[in-house]
């Protein structure tokens, strides 16, 4: 077992294949020198020796599922651009901010050249004429590492005009955000990159692959997704798909946080590792803290409907987790032991989404805010019996119908189970409700126990309820 003081949080244990974290053991992994010494830019050279469509076929054949949250295969996404519309752009989504998630920050800080090489391979394969690498504002170390790596790569002839003596030419522009969760949504990311407020665009009918940055075909890929490409090009499609399962090949970075003995970021084999392995396995989290009982866990980032010990044996596989009514999202698992105050825990997430609502859609702007306020007064012991129904009613206005969806299989929507109906443009609104719904459905008695007053208190009093840590 190894942990590295230069990569706090990352745990390197067990004998698993490493695709994206192979250099984390080196303190100087972010330098061009180390990158060269460990096979760096070989993937780009292999790509440039092939025709772009051959490289695209390789990526499509490897079924690299998008690591940002939706899990859409990268190779398929690249194929959705209209054949005759140019220029096309690549926007790299490094605006990681989903509660519980961090892997992109580590990948940018620890192996920026791997990401840059991935960008170049994608640009070559899909004919993308300029690359914009959007890094979350609150990650200055990632800016510095990626900025330094870009400067080194330009000087070495890997980026820019006539890369490695070929007719492949592309610039990579480092761009940075300024703090807004919703900008992680790909159309909001594009709006932000255009210098505007980060408000998601209405879709369908037009996805960024057809109408994106400046109205042009645009691919938005996550940092981890692109970081897989150099390894794929060097080792080939067969080697990539030999890891993991047929539907979920390769590896994934997951962050397990909360009440476990060894919280950490692990690169795991995709599709086979179960939640039980992750929480109790010797090479992973080594059990719940203090020998406590597991009460509940959030399987895929703050937006995901919660699971209980009943789902411990589900593998980390998108379709299966989807069919069970939740999602894998961005690979973030948050674990709660039996001492957890469930309504208060749900409030920390609902408050996050209420705070991060961009304000465009009324159900999210107003609904999220009221979910937070009503839940906050319940948690503070000022709730009324009507409040719990009120919470469900507000949720119904954001996600009408059954939620989450036992019926998604029948609807053919197993891959996108959360949520299948929503009254908002993006997922921030439903995400504010997901923790409330999960907590209320699974642990209603805990809410009821907090309701001590019989008489309704005036609405105005809500504002004077002391908000817990984190409220704005």
């Amino acid at each position, binding site marked *: 077992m190894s942990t590295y003081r230069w990569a706090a949080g990352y745990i390197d244990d067990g004998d698993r294949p490493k695709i994206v974290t192979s250099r984390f053991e080196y303190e100087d992994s972010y330098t061009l020198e180390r990158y060269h010494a460990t096979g760096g830019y070989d993937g780009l050279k292999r790509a440039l020796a092939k025709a772009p469509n051959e490289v695209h076929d390789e990526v499509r054949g490897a079924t690299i599922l998008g690591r940002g949250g939706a899990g859409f295969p990268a190779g398929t996404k690249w194929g959705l651009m209209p054949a005759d519309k140019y220029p096309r752009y690549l926007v790299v989504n490094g605006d990681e901010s989903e509660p519980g998630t961090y892997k*992109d920050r580590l990948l940018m800080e620890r192996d920026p050249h791997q990401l840059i090489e991935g960008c170049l391979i994608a640009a070559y394969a899909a004919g993308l004429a300029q690359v914009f690498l959007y890094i979350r*504002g609150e990650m200055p170390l990632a800016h510095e590492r990626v900025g330094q790596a870009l400067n080194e790569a330009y000087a070495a002839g890997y980026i820019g005009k006539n890369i490695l003596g070929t007719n492949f030419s592309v*610039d990579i522009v480092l761009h940075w955000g*300024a703090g807004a969760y919703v900008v992680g949504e790909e159309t909001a990311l594009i709006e932000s990159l255009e210098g505007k407020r980060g408000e998601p665009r209405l879709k369908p009918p037009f996805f960024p692959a057809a109408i994106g940055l400046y109205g042009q075909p645009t691919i938005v890929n996550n940092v981890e997704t692109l970081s897989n490409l150099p390894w794929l090009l060097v080792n080939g499609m067969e080697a990539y798909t030999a890891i993991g399962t047929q539907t979920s090949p390769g590896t994934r970075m997951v962050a397990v946080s909360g009440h476990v003995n060894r919280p950490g970021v692990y690169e795991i084999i995709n599709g086979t590792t179960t939640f039980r392995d992750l929480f109790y396995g010797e090479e992973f989290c080594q059990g719940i803290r203090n020998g406590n009982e597991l009460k509940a866990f959030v399987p895929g980032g703050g937006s995901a409907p919660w699971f209980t010990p009943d789902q411990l044996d589900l593998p980390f596989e998108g379709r299966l987790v989807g069919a069970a009514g939740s999602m894998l999202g961005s690979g973030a698992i948050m674990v709660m032991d039996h001492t957890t105050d469930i309504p208060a*825990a749900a409030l*920390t997430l609902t408050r996050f989404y209420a705070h991060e609502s961009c304000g465009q859609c009324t159900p999210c702007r107003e609904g999220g805010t009221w979910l937070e306020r009503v839940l906050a007064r319940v948690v503070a012991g000022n709730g009324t019996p009507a409040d719990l129904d009120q919470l469900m009613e507000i949720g119904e206005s954001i996600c009408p119908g059954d939620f989450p969806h036992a019926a998604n299989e029948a609807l053919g929507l197993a891959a996108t189970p959360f949520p299948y109906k929503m009254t908002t443009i993006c997922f921030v609104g439903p995400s504010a409700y997901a923790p409330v719904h999960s907590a209320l459905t699974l642990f209603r008695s805990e809410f009821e126990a907090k309701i001590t007053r019989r008489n309704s208190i005036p609405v105005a009093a809500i504002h004077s309820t002391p908000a817990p840590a984190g409220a704005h």
Partner: protein
Amino acid sequence: MARLNDDNVRLAQEIIGRYPRPRSATIPLLHLAQEQEGYLTQDAIKHVAELVGATSAEVLGTATFYEMFKFEPVGKYLINICGTMSCALMGAEELMHHAEERLGVKAGGTTSDGLFTLEHAECQAACTEAPCLQVNYRHAFRVTNADLDTLIDDLRAGTLDGEIPAHGTLARVRQSIPADKAAGVVTPEQVGAPAWFPAKDPS
């Protein structure tokens, strides 16, 4: 004089030159302005608007959307304590209470010496290292009350000046694209597939 200084104007023009549309440089330029003054002044917003060819209202509209932009002076050190789920589960609320007591200000407040502003923050992407905080967006992990006391003492004594620049400064390494290496900006007006890319299969 809260417009961008000459050095920053040169830098701003270099940044604008990387984008197909000048307005895309809005957020990077606002960061430059905030780095110069510690917060965004009305003059700076007006200047950025001139540089990117937008109205002041448009730039202000963009700026107010984003959490990191401040419209009044904040302390030299902005302490953001995370309170989202993973940190909350590991004691973020107690840490915030301690910080409030220690600094003598409530969340959102600035100490009278102008050194510290304390804020509640949302997820900072260090969830396994909870509870965490950022000082001017530089992380501290698994922070105990004692760790926080030491951190505040060190910041006051100036011993962390090399690691944590004053509020406003983000990355101290900037991208620089050498003119002789640049592939060049590709604007939407440029038609046709890129040189290396076959639009159709030659077979």
